[in-house]
C-alpha cells in the first residue's frame, strides 16, 4: 500500500498533494501579509492621503523626508470630480484636497473641511496680500479660515500668430466670423458663461461673494453662446487636449488658461501668443483644504505649508507653469522662469476677477446644456 506521503505522485520525488497544499497556504498567508503591509502604511509614520493635481506628486519624496511622513497622492483631473468624490463619502479616505478656489465654499457648505491651523502654515504670512484677502473672504466662515491658496493663474485668449498676427484684445474675437471653424470655447459652464457675461458687460454680477447673473442676463449669455456654436471647432477643457489641438492646427484661437500657453512656450512653440481681454480676466487659484474626518489634521496642514514654501513652491510653479501665491518662491527661479511663472506685477492681481461660487448654478448648468444641445 503506498504511503500517504507519496500518494498521487509517480516516483515520490515530485511534490505530493499535502506538501503542495501546505506550500500554497504558506504562500497565500505571506502574500496577504505583504498586501496588508502595503495597505497599512510604513512603520510608525503618519500617512497623509492627498487628492490633487498631477504635478504635486513630483515632490512626494522631498516632503516625506522633510516632515517624516508618508504621502499617498491620488491624481485628479478636475475640481468638480474632487468635490463630488468628497461629497460622496471619500472625505473619509483623504486628508487633503486641492481643488480650484470656487469649490472651497462648496466643500464648506457641505461641512466637509476643517479650519486652518495657522501655526502649522507659517508660509501663509509671506503670501501676496491679494491672496490673503481672497482666503479671508472666499475661504472663511464664522471667522475661521478653511483653505490656503497655493498657485494661481488667469484665463484669456490664446491665438496662433501665424494665422492671426494682430487680434483685437477682446472676447469678441471668439465670435469673429473670419475665424469660423477655427475657434475653441472652454468646455465648462462657469468659464464659458462668465467669459460671455464679461464680454456683454455684466461686470456687476462678479462683485458680490457669489456670481449673480439675472435671469435675463443669463438668457442673453446663453443666446450669445448658441450664436457662437456654428463658428467653433469645438469645446475643450483639458490642458493637454487644448495643446494637442493647437499644435495639430485644429484651431487658431481659443479661450484658455495662461498655463497651457506658458507650457507651449517652454516647449519651444513661439508661434502662440496670449492676451487678457479688455473686458476683464477670470483668475483661478488652488485652495488646499483638510478633510474634517482627517486623523492627522496638524500634519496635513504642515504638508500644505510645504507646497507654499519658497523651494517646493517654486518647483511646483515650474511643474504646473503657474505662479505660486507666495512671492518668496521667486528667489528659487531663474529670470526666464520668473518671467513665465514666477514674478507677477502686483498691480495685475488687482484686476483679477477671482472664480467664485454661483448664485443660481442650477440655472447656469441648464443654460449650458441648452447651448450644447442647440
Amino acid at each position, binding site marked *: 500500500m503506498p504511503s*500517504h506521503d507519496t500518494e498521487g505522485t509517480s516516483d515520490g520525488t515530485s511534490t505530493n498533494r499535502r506538501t503542495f497544499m501546505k506550500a500554497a497556504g504558506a504562500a497565500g498567508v505571506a502574500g496577504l501579509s505583504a498586501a496588508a503591509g502595503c495597505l497599512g502604511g510604513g512603520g510608525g509614520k503618519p500617512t497623509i492621503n492627498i487628492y490633487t493635481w498631477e504635478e504635486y506628486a513630483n515632490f512626494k519624496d522631498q516632503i516625506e523626508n522633510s516632515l517624516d511622513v508618508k504621502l499617498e497622492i491620488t491624481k485628479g483631473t*478636475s475640481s*468638480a*470630480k474632487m*468635490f*463630488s468624490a468628497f*461629497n*460622496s463619502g471619500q472625505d473619509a479616505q483623504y486628508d487633503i484636497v486641492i481643488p480650484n478656489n470656487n469649490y472651497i465654499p*462648496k466643500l464648506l*457648505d*457641505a*461641512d466637509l473641511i476643517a479650519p486652518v491651523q495657522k501655526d502649522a502654515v507659517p508660509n501663509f504670512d509671506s503670501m501676496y496680500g491679494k491672496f490673503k484677502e481672497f482666503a479671508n473672504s472666499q475661504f472663511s466662515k464664522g471667522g475661521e479660515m478653511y483653505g490656503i491658496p497655493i498657485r494661481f493663474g488667469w484665463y484669456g485668449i490664446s491665438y496662433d500668430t501665424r494665422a492671426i498676427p494682430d487680434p483685437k484684445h477682446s472676447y469678441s474675437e471668439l465670435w469673429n466670423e473670419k475665424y469660423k*471653424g*477655427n475657434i475653441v*470655447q472652454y*468646455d465648462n*459652464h462657469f468659464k464659458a458663461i462668465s467669459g460671455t457675461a464679461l464680454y456683454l458687460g455684466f461686470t456687476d454680477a462678479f462683485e458680490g461673494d457669489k456670481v449673480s447673473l439675472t435671469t435675463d442676463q443669463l438668457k442673453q449669455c446663453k443666446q450669445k453662446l448658441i450664436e457662437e*456654436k456654428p463658428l*467653433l*471647432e*469645438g*469645446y*475643450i*477643457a483639458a490642458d493637454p*487636449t487644448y495643446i*494637442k*489641438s493647437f499644435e*495639430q*492646427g*485644429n*484651431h487658431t484661437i481659443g479661450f484658455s488658461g495662461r498655463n497651457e500657453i506658458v507650457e507651449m512656450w517652454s516647449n519651444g512653440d513661439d508661434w502662440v501668443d496670449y492676451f487678457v481681454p479688455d473686458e476683464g480676466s477670470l483668475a483661478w487659484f488652488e485652495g488646499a483644504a483638510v478633510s474634517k474626518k482627517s486623523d492627522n489634521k496638524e500634519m496635513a496642514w504642515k504638508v500644505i505649508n510645504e507646497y507654499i514654501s519658497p523651494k517646493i513652491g517654486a518647483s511646483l510653479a515650474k511643474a504646473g507653469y503657474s505662479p505660486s501665491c507666495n512671492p518668496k518662491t521667486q528667489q528659487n527661479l531663474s529670470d526666464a522662469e520668473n518671467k513665465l511663472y514666477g514674478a507677477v506685477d502686483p498691480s495685475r492681481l488687482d484686476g483679477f476677477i477671482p472664480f467664485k461660487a454661483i448664485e443660481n*448654478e*442650477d440655472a447656469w*448648468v*441648464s443654460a*449650458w*446644456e*441648452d447651448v*450644447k*444641445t442647440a
Partner: protein
Amino acid sequence: MSTGHTSETRRQLIRAFSSTRRRLGLTVGPSLVWLMLLLLAPLSFMIAVSFLKVNDAYQIVYEPTLANYGNLFAGSGPFWQSSFFQSLVLSYELAFVTTIVCLALAFPLAYLLARRGGRTFKVVIFLVLLPFFTMYLVRAYSWFLMFGSNGVINSTLMTLGIVSEPVKLFGFGKFAIIVGLTHAYFPYMLLSLYASLDGLDFSLVEAARDLGASRIETLRDIIVPLVLPGIISGSLFVFVPSLGAFITPRFLGQGKVLMIGQLIENRIDSLYAINYGGAASMFIVVSIVIAFALAFRYVSIEDLGGI
C-alpha cells in the same frame, strides 16, 4: 494519528455539503453576494435617490418626490425642446446607428469566418482583438488625432489634393463619435454573430439556392431567421453601452454633442445633483429593460447564450 484525523475531517466535510442546498450555497453564494452588493444595491440606491431631494448642503433629504422627473423636462418651451429630451433622443440615435453599422460590417466578416474557419478565423480574430490589448482611453485618443479640421484624415486628403479645405464630415461631431463607438464595440457584434453562424447548417443555404432562391431571398428567409439570436445578442451588446457612452463622445464630439451619459456626469460633477442623475439614469435603465424584454420575445435565453 494524523491519517485518522484527515479521514474524519473529510467525512465531516462530505456530511456538511451532502445537501443540495448547501452545495448550491457554496457555488452560487459568492456570485450572488457579489451581484447583490455591486449591482442590485447600487441600482436600488439610484432608484431610491431619483425620488428624493438634495439640499443646499448636498445632503440627501428623505422626502419622496416626483419633482426630479419633472425637472428633467423643465424649460421655457414644450418638453421635447428640453436639453434632457434632446440629449436622450440624440443618444438613442447614435446608439442605434452604431448598432446598425456594427451589424452591417460584422455580418459579412462573421459569415466568412464561419465558412472558412481554421487559420483564417484565428488570424482575423487576432487582428480584430489586437487593439483591445490597449487601454480604451488610448484608443479613443488615437481617434482624436485622426479627426478634426487638421487631423490625419483631413491633412491627408488636403496633401493629396483630393480636397482644398477640410471636409466637415471628418471634423469632430456625430460621425466621429459613431466611428469611435463602432470601433469600440465591433468585436462584440462579430463574436456574437460568429457564434450563431458557426452553428448554422450551410446545407440549408445550398438547398435554398438549388431550389431557385436568390441570394437576397436566401439571406432573408433562411440565414437571418436562423442567426436571429446572434443578431439580437450582438445588437444588445452594442446598443446598451453605446447609449450610455461618455468617453468617446467627449473626445470625438469635442463638446459639440451632448449625449445622455455626459449630461448626467456634468450634473453630478457640477451640482452633485444625484437626484437628477438618478432620474435621468432611470430612462436608460428602463429602455434597456424594454430592449431585453423585446429580445426575449423573439429568442429564448438559451438561444441568446448560444446553447
